[in-house]
């Protein structure tokens, strides 16, 4: 397995790639800024496209990663560039797993995000995440969200998948 660790303008990146296989593991630690989160979403999308992952998965994962990063930046870290957002991605044709962790006090983990009034200004991002990902979990106090898509899941999101 090839591994690489590189400093970035907004933080650092570690990546592993198994040559000959559609698999990559990427970790970012970025300062909590809009520019950094835009860069992370762009890099992860390019990685998924390079791995030739399913277009529907790429679209779902890109949107959900952006929504989780926006929540981490604006709500978890209150837009403080001194704070850090940690991102972990496992990307393969069998499974996509996305981790986003901020330095805040966490999501209200007991709320039912699958049944949100989408006209309400809060919760729309988490509603989309719950609709588009196969599984969503929170770690610890809730400042770490884990989202995944898996081939073994019977996708219930046919409305989105068309």
């Amino acid at each position: 397995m090839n591994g690489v660790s590189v400093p970035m303008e907004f933080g650092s990146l570690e990546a592993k790639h198994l040559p000959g296989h559609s698999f990559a593991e990427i970790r970012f630690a970025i300062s909590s800024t809009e520019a950094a989160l835009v860069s992370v979403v762009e890099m992860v999308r390019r990685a998924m496209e390079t791995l030739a992952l399913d277009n529907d998965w790429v679209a779902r994962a890109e949107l959900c990663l952006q929504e989780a990063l926006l929540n981490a930046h604006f709500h978890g870290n209150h837009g403080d560039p001194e704070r850090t957002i940690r991102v972990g991605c496992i990307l393969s044709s069998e499974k996509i797993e996305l981790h986003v962790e901020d330095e805040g006090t966490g999501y209200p983990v007991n709320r039912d995000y699958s049944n949100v009034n989408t006209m309400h200004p809060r919760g729309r991002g988490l509603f989309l995440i719950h609709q588009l990902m196969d599984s969503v979990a929170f770690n610890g106090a809730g400042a770490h969200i884990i989202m995944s898509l898996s081939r073994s899941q019977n996708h219930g999101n046919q409305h989105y998948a068309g």
Partner: protein
Amino acid sequence: MEINIMQADNNTTIALKGRFDFQAHQEFRRTVDGLLRSGKATLTVDLSQVNFIDSSALGLLLLARENCEKAGGGVILNQPKDYVDKVLKLCHFDQLFQVQR
């Protein structure tokens, strides 16, 4: 994201191109507010060249709808492409807005 305003007869269209997300917040609001101030209360938002939409953009559409309705008009969504259209449907925006497909 690119924003272009097109005027034909009494129809005002805001044509968007690219990613419609949180980064478009100020420019989109400024555009809608400017049109409302000039008396254009019924706006068509052309989404045919939008390839990504996030929850912030959905919020911007709701705000535009609210402000246009207060001024006696409304917002029409025009030709959302596959991916964008699916997100709109998922959030029931096809029930909140007139969507031209």
